[in-house]
């Protein structure tokens, strides 16, 4: 069936089987390969994208269900070729990753958290990423990255209603 998806500010027309998940539509049809398949049954969170700014699991949605909502992927939070957002840079500063497979999802979960809570406690951060499994890092440096990003973003002069 023909569907329209709004991804990173652009509208795309796709022809997909209804059973194509949003994850597979993003990866295979739109070549946005930053979202990853880890389990395809909604537990690991590696497929996380933002749906109207809120973190959701793209493997738990069939592509037709995603019509009419603003979808943001990791490609959409990257400011430009070779450029990093404050959150992305913070992850590099603390080495909040190793293999990189869960990383886009973690960063989007961080964005979702910080959009609503610019001053999260450690417990807030732990809760926000608790739906994203990492097998490499033991989470410590990820939590530090998000705390660092929050601290840096609080220190900058951007208006409160900006998207990080």
């Amino acid at each position, binding site marked *: 069936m023909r569907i329209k998806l709004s991804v990173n500010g652009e509208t795309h027309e796709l022809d997909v089987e209804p059973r194509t998940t949003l994850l597979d539509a993003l990866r295979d049809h739109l070549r946005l*390969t930053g979202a990853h398949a880890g389990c395809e049954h909604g537990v690991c969170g590696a497929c996380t994208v933002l749906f109207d700014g809120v973190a959701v699991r793209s493997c738990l949605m069939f592509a037709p269900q995603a019509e009419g909502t603003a979808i943001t992927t990791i490609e959409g939070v990257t400011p430009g070729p070779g450029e990093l957002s404050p959150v992305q840079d913070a992850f590099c500063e603390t080495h909040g990753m*190793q293999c990189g497979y869960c990383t*886009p999802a973690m*960063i989007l979960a961080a964005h979702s958290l910080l959009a609503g809570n610019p001053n999260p406690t450690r417990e807030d951060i732990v809760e926000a990423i608790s739906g994203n499994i990492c097998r*490499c*890092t*033991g989470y*410590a440096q990820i939590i530090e990255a998000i705390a660092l990003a929050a601290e840096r973003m609080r220190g900058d002069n951007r208006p409160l209603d900006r998207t990080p």
Partner: protein
Amino acid sequence: MSEAPHHFRYVATDRRVREDRRFVAGKGRFVADVDLPGTRHVALVTCPHAAARIKSIDKSRALKMPGVHYVLDGTELAEATQPLLAGLDTPNVPRRPLAFEVARYSGEWVAAVVADTRAQAEDAAEEVDVDYEPLPFVLDAERAMEKDSPLVHEAHGSNVLLDKTFVWGEVDKDFAKSPHKLSLRAKWGRSSTVPIETFGVVAGWDPWHEILDVHASIQLPRYNDQIGAALKIPVSSVRVHHDVDVGGSYGVKRGIKHTVLCGYLARRLGFPVRLIEDRLENMRGGDAHGPERLFDVELAYDDNGIVHSMKMRALENLGAYAGRSPFQLGKPAGSIVGPYKINSVQYRAIAVVTNKTTQDAVRGFGAGPTNMALERAMDEVAHAVGLDPLEVRRRNMIRHEEFPYTIPSGTEYDSGDYHTVIDKVLAGDTFETLKRQRDALRAEGKLAGIGIAACLEPSGGNAIFEALLNPKITTSTFMDSCRITVDGLGSITATMHTTSSGQGHETLVGTVVGEALQMDPDRIRVTRPDSLNSLPSGTPVASRMAIMLGGAAYRAAQKLKDKLIAIAAHDLGIPPTRAVYEAGNVYDRDDPSTKRTWSELVEIAHRNYHRMPPGFEPGLAVSDIYQVPTGGKLPTPDGRVQMYPCFSFEFHLILLTIDPVLGTPKIVRYRLGHDCGTQINPKIVRGMAMGGIAHGIGAALYEEFAYNDEGQLIAQSFMDYLLPSSHEVPPVEVIDHETPSPHTVLGQKGSGESGYLGAPAAIANAVNDALRPLGLNINTLPLKASHLADMIAEAQKS
């Protein structure tokens, strides 16, 4: 000795990991991102029975389904390919990608469907009709050893693939003269390191160059050799692309059967063939399970808590087939006494096949389970003599001044300062304080315990356990390599010759080369040529890459420096002894203003042969292929062997509570002392230790590949196989110490397995300390909350 002050410029400093840049932007290149035109997809038909004869396979309905190109069965594949490489000498236990005549575990791959899309392949896989005749099966390792057990492989005549006993030192004498003995049975449950990315491979055959291109999420030594051997093509026809980012491996990304399957199909069908395991295929049939090991340990000790001798029987439940996995019984021989001065050891290693999923290598290669058994036993010695577990460790540990120290099995430990690491972990927060905390929690009605674990991380990968367990193997070469080229305008490129799965190897090479050349590591380009353009590499196993790739990179850089010095000295007309290298330039020690700059030297090397020393190769290209330090010897006839060269040390200290009714464990305090010598990149090292601890928490408390009595894997998905989330991993204070290795170029030792090696042992000890007031003892991992609660309830009844 306290840590030597760092004289490094870049090594051991707080540098970013260059690989992180692409990962945070979602620009990693994982195997599922590789998009070759014309690729078709594989889905597997799997056996539902624990054991069954395959009577017939009807492909007719499947072949009519939309998008389907082919259905491959085990008979066709067996005729066209060689069985996969085995570690032990077991010719009657062949292993193949698809079951041949008999399927031997529930989930084993029986047929492969190739279709235009993965979804179509799955649709068609459901329509393949396999007629099975279920056979008797065996799941338990001790049962499998019995004479009347069902046989997993009839032709082998028994289920025992290995039963070897080593006697190192005068065990009987030491046992006879020790006043006390204790026995302990410990079970390491079947779990694995389960990366978030499953295994995947895309194989494409180019008939015009006669090359099989392989992109895979791989971490496997001799991968290209094994592909060539199985497919019966020259290894020079196999091109493995090392620039595929691997989404986590920790040992298990060994998909040789997936690769041979896809390689065969690609050659047969004439288009690229892709298999990305889905999670169900991965858990049941990916052959990436970890050890499931039963230990019987006997320690002989005296009234002072000194352990004189140990007998250990390790029984491994391999699953239905074996590749390298049985060697996970051999590697522990190289550190069999842990950090202790145990005088003699008897070690019996038994490996049996059962009708469970096949194992492969898991982080630590058998050391995690072995440490757990030994550390539990040490704690029980402490309890028996009425000493603190900590004091027993201190009394038994090898002292700093006793290094290098040769253990009974023949391996020499390079260096260590275990007592200082322990002191540092306890500094300002003595054992007494933690005990008071524990007692306060107990007073509140909670069960609380302190657990410690002291263990070694053998690193460097001198894998002589192969020869130890299979005398037909005479491999004593374990190497890695690096090539450095300076181009015509002076930029530097270094190469590494394997894949990585998050260890930051590009950063490692850049840092080490930069250190040697005294140049900013960010200026050093690091690339990964494919296998046809690579020098040999042992791949990132065995906690070896800091030592081996770091070593090769450093030595190659030294060769480059030497060449630059020689060129400059010749051009300056001074003896080489007067030429001083500094950050790419070379000057005359007697007159520092007389020098040749980097640009000038590059110019001479590339374009002014008339100014080069006679007989020199033009250009600036060097390489180093590095044999593992202390390696090069096979085991002695009595099974003594120099295993790995370097030994890192870790000391875990945990305070843990258990809810007496709900049984839920909670780690309240966690301190880790870690000594891996020089840390080339501290951020990377800390990440490894934290990640290893998380893996260890999973193995100790949550993760299990559980089977029911029908041989069905009941933990098939992430709903039942429970991976620790951020809630389950507590904050950990990591306290570093650095005792350099005398064997390595920078004093570095390995850290790729750290945390995982000791966390389960420490958690097991803490749980036992918590349960001790109830008279309970438990030595089976995982320690599940409901089971602990059941034990507690039972004890409280009586």
